[in-house]
């Protein structure tokens, strides 16, 4: 049984379609990150699941119940807000106990359950503090405890780490992941931070303009983006446009301004259609020299190009190069900081065919 099931969910605000015909199913205990830029519909979707927004059409199933007509208090969804939304006039204990009191849990049980959860989020001893007397991280954990103590059917997290500083944010990623695993709770995690989504999620749902672009495990989202927009939004992508040629020995080929590039994917693309070859900066290898065509001829497992180093940025753990391979094509290459290639130096670029992926030129919902 799936825990969250969205069927052709649609929501408009005036002329703006915030969520367009969204179908999505979360397995029991799964954490799915909704990833996209602001205004992509991820928060609206979350609010529809929580019951704060009413869908124009479509169905929402939580734990097998169709809940679209239910008010928020009957949906059994624990929610953590971006600004935590703790009750400022209640202590940590009272904040966490609130949901249990609403459920008419006996007082002694409330005490044990609150104590238990506070221990789990390491807030024992903070019971009588007010939210404003807590650090950002402690407020965050109070909000998590408050949402989890009611044992909700699903957990909804709206950019929960956005207000924390960078270092704490990174720690909290693992913390939230562990907590979610421990409770085995089906979770929707809304974020605009791709690293957060990739680290935390079982699957990532990439959204844009209210349309689901791709939903898949993090590795697939990064290595096998469905279209150019996803490739660009998640990480850095070198996108080389061209037309699909005849495949050779089951390897797809795309005719580009830089010559034929061998690539994977594109099974759905027909010969002659427009597409782009997507290569991640770390998949490109640099070598010194302008190498003659013979020594650098591409094979069916490695693509080769020649270029000139145009710019170089030192990032500590790696170097970020901009390599001009054509009058109007500059590729990003990220490699180990040594050896150092100088600006204007001739280089050879090689990239494995299995790390070259064909993507559709347009985003979903634009055709």
């Amino acid at each position, binding site marked *: 049984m799936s825990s969250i099931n969205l069927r052709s969910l649609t929501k408009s605000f005036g002329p703006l379609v915030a969520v367009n015909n969204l179908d999505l199913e979360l397995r029991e205990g799964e954490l799915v990150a909704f990833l996209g830029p602001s205004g992509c519909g991820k928060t609206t979707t979350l609010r529809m699941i929580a019951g704060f927004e009413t869908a124009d059409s479509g169905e929402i199933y939580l734990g097998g119940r169709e809940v679209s007509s239910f008010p928020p208090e009957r949906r059994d969804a624990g929610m953590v807000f971006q600004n935590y*939304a703790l009750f400022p*006039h209640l202590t940590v204990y009272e904040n966490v106990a609130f949901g249990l009191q*609403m459920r008419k849990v006996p007082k002694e049980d409330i005490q044990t359950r609150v104590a238990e959860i506070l221990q789990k989020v390491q807030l024992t001893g903070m019971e009588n503090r007010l939210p404003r007397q807590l650090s950002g991280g402690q407020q965050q954990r109070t909000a998590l405890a408050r949402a989890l103590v009611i044992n909700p059917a699903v957990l909804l997290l709206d950019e929960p780490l956005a207000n924390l500083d960078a270092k704490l944010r990174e720690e909290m990623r693992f913390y939230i992941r562990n907590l979610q695993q421990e409770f085995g709770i089906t979770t929707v995690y809304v974020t605009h931070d791709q690293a957060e989504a990739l680290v935390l999620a079982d699957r990532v749902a990439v959204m844009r303009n209210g349309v689901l672009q791709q939903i898949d495990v993090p590795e697939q989202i990064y290595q096998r983006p469905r279209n150019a927009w996803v490739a660009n939004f998640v990480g850095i992508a070198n996108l080389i446009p061209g037309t699909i040629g005849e495949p050779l020995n089951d390897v797809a080929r795309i005719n580009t301004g830089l010559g034929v590039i061998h690539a994977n994917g594109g099974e759905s693309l027909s010969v002659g259609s427009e597409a782009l070859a997507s290569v991640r900066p770390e998949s490109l290898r640099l070598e010194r020299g302008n190498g003659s065509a013979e020594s650098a001829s591409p094979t069916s497992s490695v693509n080769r190009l020649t270029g000139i180093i145009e710019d170089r940025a030192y990032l500590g753990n790696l170097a970020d190069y901009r390599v001009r391979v054509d009058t109007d094509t500059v590729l990003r290459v990220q490699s180990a900081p040594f050896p150092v290639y100088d600006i204007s130096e001739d280089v050879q670029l090689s990239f494995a065919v299995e790390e070259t992926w064909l993507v559709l030129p347009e985003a979903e919902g634009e055709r």
Partner: protein
Amino acid sequence: MSATADRVSMRERFQAGSSPPALLIIPALILVGGFFVIPYLYLLYMSFMTHTTGAAYIREFTLENYTETLRDPFNWRIIWQTLRFGIVTTLVTLILSYPLAYHMARAQSRVKGLLMILLLAPLLVGIVIRSYGWMILLADTGLVNQLAEAFGVGPFALMYNRTGVMIGLVHIYMPFMALSLLGSIQGIDPDIERAARSLGANGWQTFWRVTWPLSLPGVASGTVLVFVLTVSSYVIPSLLGGHRVITVPLLVVQTVQQIFNWPLGSALAIVFFVITIAIVGVYLKMMDRVMKGER
């Protein structure tokens, strides 16, 4: 990074600019001192002087005015009636204004602007004119009674009695209550209410457990403001009460202008002032305790 640095330096600059605050309160001090404190002290002085005919008072210390004021059961009836107007008006404006203020606080900005204009527009018209407006509506042959007659009911006595005064007071002082509440409800993050809902609280529980306690500062200031304005109101009770409904301000003015007893009027004014201050003081202390308990 540079944006943050700019913001900090802007704030510092702002703080540095406001460093001599003492000078800034002088105009207000002159105004309050000259037109409020000094006349009140004079009133206090006069209340201890001896009544005479032919002059406002003679300079002879006496407690007679106070004993007379406190002994007269008529005065106490009027004081109680005035306080009751204050309490009832405050409660009615609170009950009527809260939903309005809540709706305004949560409305889209365009709707909010329109409601704000509607709320404030009556304040642009003088209180006397508005009272006359109510007289046209509430008179025995007024619009309301004509309408009632068309439906075969009435006529109702809506004017020159307590009902008329109440209607006028509620109408005129409601904006003060609504604005006080609006400010404090606007300060409540709607996500806090949503959080309560997601934790299983229904609309009423959310209101009583979250919204209401968080709006108490606005409730405190609004109720005090309306209570004080109501009990000191003169024009509305005199026009809509038609001198058949007497309140303390009316009685003070009558004592001074018709009986020409300045010291006695002053004493009554001072007694009522002390009672009002005491009530407001006790009330604010209670509210403070309630809010501390909530926090």
